[in-house]
């Protein structure tokens, strides 16, 4: 496969600067190829008359040692993107390089470990045998007992895989990714099916791996999960990157709330001057306020307008935030 030369990137950079969000991976060493470099990825699926343009012109760059979240609603193209990064499906256009080599070569060399959303377990083997098998395929595998302990699987190590609960099976998938000791961990919705405690354990181990220099990419549709565990968030919607940047900035952008209040006879221009309010729209007697800081806005609203009633504060919701961002980016 052809190696990818970095395309001119000024325009994207300029756009990112305007938006005030830009990758945090700028401090990478100039010579080392990034852990992940994807350019212009396109993928369309055609089945029985319907055409799904799953990924449309996606660029992604992840520096070695970085932890990046692919955040997006269902259908945003996260899983398809991950499949292309792993070489499980070939892009219709564009190219992927992992540390400068093709996905197939990186996989063959044991540099990649993946937790797939659809990744099932082999039947009729014990948890230990399965983890051993996966370890045996990698050149620098970790000791199986350590991995079983870290993944919390010691008590069920001798159980057959088909008898596990959903949460236990997810822990086994996790152990299968850990045992490889691969440099790049690609995790597709890794905490689905895990309870709160297991989730916490999981991220503790992943953060430790990241601290030890592993590169981690994970897909999720939970903003909080992305915010808490990633250095950088890449927002996907309808097969495109609609925003990317440090987690805190992305959270501020899409974690907005809106206030709906019944407030007749007040000019929207006046409302816009309230602290924390960034947009105002009138719907008959009611007003809809988009807020950067809803707490400040509610305080000011109640202090200034005694007649304000039926106040509702709602999270914008990830879907809504994505739709807005998609509109912005078009």
């Amino acid at each position: 496969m052809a190696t990818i030369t970095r395309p001119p990137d000024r325009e994207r950079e300029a756009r990112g600067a305007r938006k005030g969000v830009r990758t945090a991976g700028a401090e990478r060493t100039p010579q080392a190829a990034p852990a992940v470099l994807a350019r212009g990825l396109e993928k369309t699926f055609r089945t029985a008359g319907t055409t799904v343009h799953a990924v449309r012109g996606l660029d992604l760059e992840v520096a070695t040692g970085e932890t990046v979240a692919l955040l997006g609603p269902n259908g945003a193209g996260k899983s398809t993107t991950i499949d292309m990064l792993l070489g499980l499906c070939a892009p219709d256009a564009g190219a992927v390089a992992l540390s400068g080599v093709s996905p197939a070569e990186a996989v063959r060399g044991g540099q990649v470990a993946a937790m797939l959303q659809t990744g099932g377990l082999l039947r009729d083997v014990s948890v230990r045998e399965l983890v051993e098998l996966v370890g045996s395929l990698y050149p620098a595998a970790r000791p199986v007992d350590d991995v079983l302990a870290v993944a919390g699987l010691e008590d069920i190590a001798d159980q057959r895989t088909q008898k596990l609960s959903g949460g236990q099976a997810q822990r086994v998938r996790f152990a299968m990714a850990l045992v490889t000791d691969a440099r790049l961990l690609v995790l597709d919705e890794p905490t689905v099916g895990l309870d709160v405690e297991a989730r916490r354990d999981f991220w503790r181990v992943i953060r430790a791996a990241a601290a030890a220099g592993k590169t981690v990419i994970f897909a999720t549709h939970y903003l909080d999960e992305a915010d808490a565990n990633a250095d950088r968030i890449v927002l996907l919607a309808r097969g495109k990157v609609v925003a990317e940047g440090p987690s805190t900035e992305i959270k501020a952008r899409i974690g907005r709330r809106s206030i709906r209040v019944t407030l007749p006879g007040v000019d929207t221009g006046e409302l816009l001057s309230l602290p924390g309010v960034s947009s105002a729209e009138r719907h008959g007697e009611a007003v809809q306020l988009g807020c950067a800081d809803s707490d400040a806005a509610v305080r000011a609203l109640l202090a200034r307008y005694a007649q304000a009633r039926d106040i509702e504060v709602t999270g914008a919701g990830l879907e809504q935030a994505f739709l807005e961002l998609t509109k912005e980016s078009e």
Partner: protein
Amino acid sequence: MTTLVYTRTELLRTFRSKRFFIMALGFPLALYFLIAVPNRNITDIAGTGISAPLYFMVSMAAYGAMVAALSTGVRIAGERAAGWSRQLRVTPLSSSSYIRGKAVTAYAVALVAIGLLFLSGTLLGVRLSADEWLRMTGLLLVGLIPFVALGVLLGHLLTTDSIGPAAGGLGAVMAFLGGAWFPLGDGTLAQIAQLLPSYWLVQASHAALGGPAWPAKGWIVVAAWSVALIVLARWAFRRDTRPV
């Protein structure tokens, strides 16, 4: 090393599946006793020069081995449905190690089937020299190559819903056209059957007659099917990367 652990795991889990063994081995064994016991005194079945217990011993061993080989496909379809195949594809396991693991497992099950049938044959009075037993076994193992490849091919083409009937049906038709249920004689059916690999698998019993069991035609047919099906199986494995 990697192939070794993978193959060992495949063998382990296959031999753990009791239901699979009952179906794969019980059926040809039961059929053997059903057909061969009433005919055990026939010393020359349909002019072949072979006794009925011997003929059906080999034909049912061939049938059992075919079922064992094709059932690889059933396991593969299951692994694909569970998503295990995709998981394996993001590991360094090479496609040749994968196929080797599947083939070794198919052969291991086939050998158990062949062994059980041979044992049953001796119970019904089949007596052969060590040389003849070995040559027959050798021919069965060579004749099985196309079916092992066919198992892998079907496993990567079909889903869990369709693989059962497809493998079972194909196995039965192939066995029938190979002369497993009764010798086909020299008619048109036999002429057509001679183009199938199953025919030659069943004809391994001719090893007991002295002289070459397979004429050149037999070797050519088996070789041609082997090459064609191995190529197709590799193609099916390589293209099969989408979730099922």
